[in-house]
């Protein structure tokens, strides 16, 4: 392997690693706050990318119907609860958030041809279609069993994942697609050619990670999420309800997932089930961080990206094997390093 190939592979690895890092951070966040291992994270990657593909192809994305269906379901359930407790203003608020807003979005999509819009607006529309699915899924699937054990939550996660993947096949079909590249710029660095899209992915990921850091360190809502992760009872006594924290963390995770999908869609062909494998690699990163440490999870995810890219050169057939085998030594090392703590 010469220098040029090494640089090319490194660029590839870093680009993928940056995406895995974003997903790993979202997984750690969701687990720390709600104890949910968020397997459906990958579906948000696929939904984000494929929704943008549909918009650019001038089709109505299937995620719109999912948004309308879930919104109506929640409005029915929560609206009925609010009526029973005679909280009419709350009922009105629920209906307007879960029904009227998605309907307005649907109206917008019917009225204007999204394919002719500039790219940032298309991305914005795709995010508006996919991101609300995160908190909605939390409300329907996880909130009723928020106090359940990690295992039960994991089983529900598997169910949600399989369901969403099936829905993805129904909406987007079995064939893969790519979106139009965000930029055609490329730079030459020595011998290697830097692709504009790859640079964009890395830079955007770094910016997003910095924004997340700012959110957790400097804003009261970010601190509230960290507080919930540290001490659930303490947080509840401050009026930070588990529901609020869960909704917020799922919104962040869905945003990260959908945005990651949109970022890589011009350079990777995305199928309805591609998200799972991408999410799983983010999960390997999160495991390296012990599902607890954000910086280690991010670093682990970048390592996964690099390892994947270099092993695809030397042992392309074993690419996935090598990446997922990484978990074994990490788990071994973790189990040797941490001392078992007796429950109080």
């Amino acid at each position: 392997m010469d220098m040029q190939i090494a640089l090319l592979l490194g660029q590839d690895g870093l680009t993928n690693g940056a995406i895995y890092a974003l997903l790993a951070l979202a997984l750690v966040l969701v687990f720390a706050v709600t104890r949910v291992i968020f397997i459906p994270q990958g579906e948000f990657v696929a939904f984000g990318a494929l929704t943008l593909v549909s918009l650019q192809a001038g089709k109505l994305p299937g995620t719109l119907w999912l948004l309308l269906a879930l919104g109506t379901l929640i409005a029915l359930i929560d609206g009925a609860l609010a009526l029973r407790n005679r909280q009419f203003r709350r009922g009105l608020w629920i209906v307007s958030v879960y029904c009227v807003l998605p309907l307005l979005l649907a109206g917008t999509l019917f009225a204007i041809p999204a394919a002719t819009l500039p790219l940032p607006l298309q991305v914005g529309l795709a995010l508006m279609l996919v991101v609300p699915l995160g908190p909605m899924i939390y409300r329907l699937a996880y909130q009723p069993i928020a106090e359940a054990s990690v295992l039960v939550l994991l089983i529900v996660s598997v169910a949600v994942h399989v369901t969403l993947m099936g829905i993805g096949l129904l909406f987007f079909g079995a064939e893969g697609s790519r979106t139009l590249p965000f930029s055609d710029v490329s730079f030459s660095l020595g011998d290697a050619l830097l692709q504009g899209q790859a640079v964009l992915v890395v830079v955007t990921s770094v910016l997003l990670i910095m924004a997340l850091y700012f959110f957790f360190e400097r804003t009261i809502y970010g601190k509230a999420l960290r507080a919930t992760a540290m001490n659930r009872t303490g947080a509840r006594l401050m009026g930070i309800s588990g529901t609020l924290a869960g909704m917020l963390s799922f919104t962040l995770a869905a945003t990260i997932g959908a945005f990651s999908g949109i970022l890589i869609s011009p350079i990777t062909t995305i199928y309805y089930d591609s998200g799972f494998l991408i999410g799983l690699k983010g999960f390997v990163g999160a495991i390296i961080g012990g599902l607890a440490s954000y910086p280690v999870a991010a670093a682990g995810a970048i390592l996964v990206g690099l390892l994947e890219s270099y092993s695809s050169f030397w042992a392309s057939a074993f690419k996935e094997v090598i990446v997922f085998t990484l978990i074994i030594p990490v788990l071994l090392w973790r189990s040797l390093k941490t001392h078992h703590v007796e429950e109080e």
Partner: protein
Amino acid sequence: MSELAGADERIVVLEVSSLSVSYGKVDALHGIALKVHRGEIVTVIGPNGAGKTTLLCALIGLLPVRGDIVYLGEQQDGGRSVEKLVRQGMTLVPEKRELFSEMSVKDNLLLGAFDRYRAGHRDQLETIDQVFEIFPRLRERRAQMAGTLSGGERQMLAMGRALMAKPRLLLLDEPSLGLAPLVIKEIFRTITQLKKLGVAILLVEQNARAALQVADYGYVLETGRLSLEGPSRDLLTDPRVIESYLGLGGRH
């Protein structure tokens, strides 16, 4: 920490009647009736396992209850929840403190005002200054992680964090637990100080003497039932209380 409306101190903040709590089939509390007025310290004393902590957890909404609770003149119904009660100014300082140990003292305090912030009150920085006035030690330690504080400082932080919510009713669960006598004295001095600010306080304590000395009114809780009640002065001299809870030292 609103200004004290001196004229009308007898406003009932909390009135509880025939309150029962059970864990499964086991009755933990039975037929409890008590009252807390504005600007008053009411204490519930009793031995280990009498149900003191259960009482506070039930009042704040962490446990389901049977019976009547009227808080701020409003009958509590099925829609009762911790979050709602916190919004209405009820705050619990739990026995285990439940601090956010990997956060700074200042962030812990800020989160105490989370619900006020969410409701649109952006005065948390002024409130922090007021809390620092009450607990100067917390000002010195403001950048330190909560997990590294001493026992007394942790109790001060737990109380300071609760005060950040500007409570109308403060529920204190064993503030003296595990603290050195001098620190206990300081904590109880602060509790008396809070009373002057017009906060209603329901104080649950095993340290009966210290609690009765700062309280206006007291109840004795034994195996889930209230066995005695009366003005603290009277309880301090009541032979039954002296016998069971104050010991010989009470006769000096």
